[in-house]
Every structure is written in structure tokens, then in C-alpha cells.
């Protein structure tokens, strides 16, 4: 009985996979058409937009220059700023939905995790020692600070040469630096052992969006009285968050993927859900943290 109910509950999470795949295709087509246009090849009915034009992080790194001299960082367009604003608003509302639902590079790593899971089964995503992992998770804030500072003083998109996301969609264009290829190869390799290694340890935009987990309006909450402590939520979390440790997930690494919720992993209905968080419900109970 419970099993069939659970099977039914698992269905909605597929909606996220569909949304992710759709955004991946959209970005891949748009970036490819744009790169072809750059080479003078015009594809009928498709308008290419460069990856920089649809990257919200380009907007984020441009904020300083925009506020100080009123111009955008080289290669960044107004559309990036629009996406950055929407991205930050969505994070305020629902946390880093961009990471869990939209970012094609997150999706790419998620797909690679399928191979890792086949290779290592339950051991997958548990290889990095906990203490080391906890420290490494803060590395992305160092990357964020470095990218923001360097972009601010040079006025150039400094991260492009190290960005595996840019390398993935432009690997064939000849516009990718060696460091970009190395970063991409490293992420592909690591994804076979760790789920979303770039998101966890190096993504500067994920770092920024992650901060919103501390005060997002809608968050993942666990209803302790109905919880049967089966740890299904912990096992399902791609970011290794200890959902069971508290009543609300406020870990800076949550990507709002819903994998832990009662609509997916949790076998008990209405036990792990996304609702308005303590600030609104006046609930001050203990919060979940990384395992």
C-alpha cells in the first residue's frame, strides 16, 4: 500500500527533470546558433544569443561596473542583468531554484551522476571525507570573491577562461581557453564519484544564491512528529544535506531540488515539504545542516 503510494508520489519530481532538460536544450541551441552566426553561418528561424547574453552571473559580475561607471562588463548584455535580478528574486523566494531547476551545467552534472550511481551504487557521492568536504564547500565563496574582485578591477569577464560551463557549450568554437577545457574535464571526472562537484565546491553563482538559503521565504521543512527517521531524505539529497537533523533546511548548499520531500524520497505524506519558513511561521526550531 505504502509502496504504491510512494510510487505515485515519485511522479511529480519528474516535472523538474523535464524543466531541466528543456532549459538545457534551450541554452544549447541558443549558444550554438550564436556561435555559428559568429562564424558567418546563419540558421533560418533561429536567433542566436551568446552564452554571455543569457548568463545571469554575467549580470552579477557587472553590478559593480554598472553602479560605478554605468556600463557593463565587456561581452555582457542588459539581458544578463535582467536574468541576474530575476535569479536573485527567485532565490529570495524559493532558494537557489536556478541551480536545481534551470542551470544547464547543474543538469549536465546530474546526468553524469547517473553513470556514477551505476558504477558505485549506494557508495556514490560518499567518497569525500566529511571533514574535508565541509571545508571544501566554502571554497566557492573564495571563487566568488576572486571573480567579483578581478572583474571589478579589469572590467573583463575574468571567469570565462576557467568556466567549465562556458567550455561545455563552446568546446567546438575555438573560443575556449585551455584552462576551461581542463576545468570541464575535471568536473566530468569528479562527477563520476561526487554529485554536482562544481556546484558544491567551485560555482561562484551557486555560492551567491546559496546565501539566500539562510533567509528564503519558502524553504524545505520537516514535520518531526510524523517523521519515521528512515533517513530516506538524507540519502536522496544530492548535496549531502542532513535533512533529518532539524525542522527546516537552511544549509547554504540546498538547491531546492525537492528530492528529499514527501513528493519524492520521503515515504510519509506531508512530512518534508516546501512551505513558508520560520520567519513567517514564527517557528524557531533547530535547522538542518550538512551531514
Amino acid at each position, binding site marked *: 500500500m505504502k509502496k504504491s503510494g510512494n510510487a505515485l508520489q515519485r511522479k511529480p519530481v519528474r516535472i523538474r527533470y523535464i524543466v531541466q532538460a528543456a532549459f538545457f536544450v534551450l541554452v544549447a541551441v541558443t549558444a550554438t546558433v550564436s556561435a555559428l552566426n*559568429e562564424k558567418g553561418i546563419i540558421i533560418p528561424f533561429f536567433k542566436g544569443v551568446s552564452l554571455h547574453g543569457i548568463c545571469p552571473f554575467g549580470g552579477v559580475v557587472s553590478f559593480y561596473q554598472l553602479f560605478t*561607471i554605468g556600463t557593463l562588463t565587456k561581452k555582457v*548584455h542588459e539581458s544578463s542583468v535582467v*536574468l541576474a535580478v530575476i535569479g536573485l528574486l527567485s532565490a529570495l*523566494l*524559493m532558494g537557489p531554484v536556478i541551480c536545481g*531547476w534551470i542551470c544547464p551545467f547543474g543538469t549536465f552534472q546530474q546526468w553524469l551522476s547517473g553513470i556514477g550511481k551505476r558504477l558505485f551504487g549506494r557508495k556514490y557521492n560518499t567518497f569525500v571525507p566529511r571533514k574535508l568536504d565541509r571545508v571544501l564547500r566554502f571554497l566557492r565563496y573564495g571563487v566568488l570573491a576572486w571573480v567579483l574582485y578581478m*572583474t571589478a*578591477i579589469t572590467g573583463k569577464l575574468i571567469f570565462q577562461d576557467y568556466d567549465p560551463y562556458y567550455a561545455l557549450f563552446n568546446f567546438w568554437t575555438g573560443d575556449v581557453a585551455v584552462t576551461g577545457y581542463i576545468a570541464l574535464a575535471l568536473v566530468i571526472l569528479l562527477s563520476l564519484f561526487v554529485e554536482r562537484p562544481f556546484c558544491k565546491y567551485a560555482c561562484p553563482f551557486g555560492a551567491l544564491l546559496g546565501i539566500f538559503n539562510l533567509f528564503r521565504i519558502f524553504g524545505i521543512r520537516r514535520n518531526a512528529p510524523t517523521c519515521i527517521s528512515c533517513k530516506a531524505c538524507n540519502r536522496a539529497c544530492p548535496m549531502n544535506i542532513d535533512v533529518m537533523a532539524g525542522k527546516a533546511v537552511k544549509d547554504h548548499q540546498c538547491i531546492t531540488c525537492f528530492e528529499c520531500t514527501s513528493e519524492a524520497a520521503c515515504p510519509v505524506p506531508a512530512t518534508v515539504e516546501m512551505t513558508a519558513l520560520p520567519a513567517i511561521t514564527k517557528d524557531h526550531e533547530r535547522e538542518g545542516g550538512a551531514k
Partner: protein
Amino acid sequence: MKLTIRTTAAAVIVLFAGGILLASALGFWVTESTKEPAKIKTGEFAGMPNPSDIRGSYTWNDISKSFGIDVGLLMQAFGVKDASTKVNTLEEAVKSLSLPPGVEIGTDAVRLFVALYTGLPHTPEESTVLPYTAAEILLREGKADKALIEAAAARAVKPAGTTPAAEPAASAVPAATGTANTAPAPAPAPAASTTKTKTETVTAPAAAAPAATTPQTATATQPAATTTTETHVEKPTGTVVGKTTFGELKQWGVSVEDIKAVLGGKIGPDPMAIKDFATQNELSFSEIKTKLQELVDKAKK
């Protein structure tokens, strides 16, 4: 209030699609650079389009429209066959040819051509050279100071008559080497005798071809006599060039006070290029550059 996977999916799509639609309606959804160069803000040319702002993504048609130059003339100057191609394809076309090290025919060459043709200001990169065909047009119709045009022409390289668009001949060598590929600029720039020349490589020996120095500022208002000529083939860290920003200067160890002393008490924000600051404040970039370079060299020691 609860958000399920379904409602979150709907919220994500509505938020992003709605946000983009709203931005489009308000005119903020711009996915490519505007094809109009920024206007010069101050000085004699205030309100005129700035050649320095020509981007690689502009087509020849865009440049023609912005600067009022006949598109056929632009195409002839750079050997282009399709006016709707982007200027940055010029670099691609030139890549396959054996241009001498340290010289480039790219977007900056187009900026230089436009500046010399219209008489508007632009400070070219040290490595920028013009194709021979462009130099010919400038010698005939250019509105900039004659000496500047001649100096640029003396460094021009010869495009192959039959090779594809804008490709200089495989044998092209810089004017400096003294081969017959240079533009016919018989008269040496008057600047040559009074110019502080710090030639490191590709320029010609001053005695043999004084005109072969690179004008740092091609502007109708700035006489060549005040032009500093410096040709660096390499741009190692710590070399002040047109694109150098204030942030980079600071990173290289130059203090804010020293920068201000050179710029008359002012300083631009970190991401701003020094050249843009000079243009905005009607300062001679060539002079500033020399002084700042001295500070950088001092800081390096």
C-alpha cells in the same frame, strides 16, 4: 502556505518567462551590444560617435551608418566582400596568414581607419597596422592630420590582390623591415624629429624610415609633434596600453596618490580604461601613458 513540485515548476517558468517579457516590454531585454558606438562626451568632438567604441560585433554596414562613411569604401579599404559580416571576422581572415609577429589587422585597425578618415580621435594599440588599400584611401581622402595619416600609411601591409577579403599577402612584413610592402608614404611624419621614440622592435630604424613610427593618438586635433611613439610587440604584465584599467595599475603597485598626481588630481573607477578616462577628460593619453609607465616600472623594482 505550501509549494509543491508542480507549483514550483509553474512559479519558475512564470517568474523567468514573465520577467523576460516584462523586461522586453520595458526595453531592457537586450541580448547583443547596440550597434551604435558611444558618443564622445567632451571636447571639440563632443556628441560625435567615438571610433574607439567600434566593437568586433559591428558589421561594416553598422560602421558605415554610424560614421557616415560609404560602405563600399570601407569594403575596399579592408578587402571585404560582404557588408553584413562582422568586423571581428577580419582577425579570423588574417590569422591564417603569416603576418609578422607583433602586428595585427583587426578591429582596432578599423577604428584607426575610421578615426583617420573622419578626423575623430582614437588611440590605436601598438600592434595595429592598416592594410595597404586602407592607407591608399586615407592618403587620398583622410580628414585627419596629414602627418598622422602618413605615419600610419608607412606601417601599412600589402593585401594580396587576389586573396580573400582583407587578407594581407602572406609575404606581408611590417613597414619597419623596409621591404616594398609598406604604403607609399614618402614624406616622413614631421613628428619624427621631435618625437620621443622608444622603439623596441618592428619599427623602422629612425634614420631609414622615420615615418614608420606608430602614432599613439590619431586625432585631428592633436598634432603629431606631441605624439609619443612607442612600439611594444609584447605586452607583458605591467605595460600600460590603451586597455589598461585603473584597477590593473593599482594591482601593479602604483599608488592612488601617484596616479592622481599624473592625472591632475583625479582618478577613474577601477574597471575604467585609462584611455577612456583620458578621452573623457581631454587629456593626452600618450603623455599620461609615459608617466604612468614610469610609475609602473618604478613599482616593479
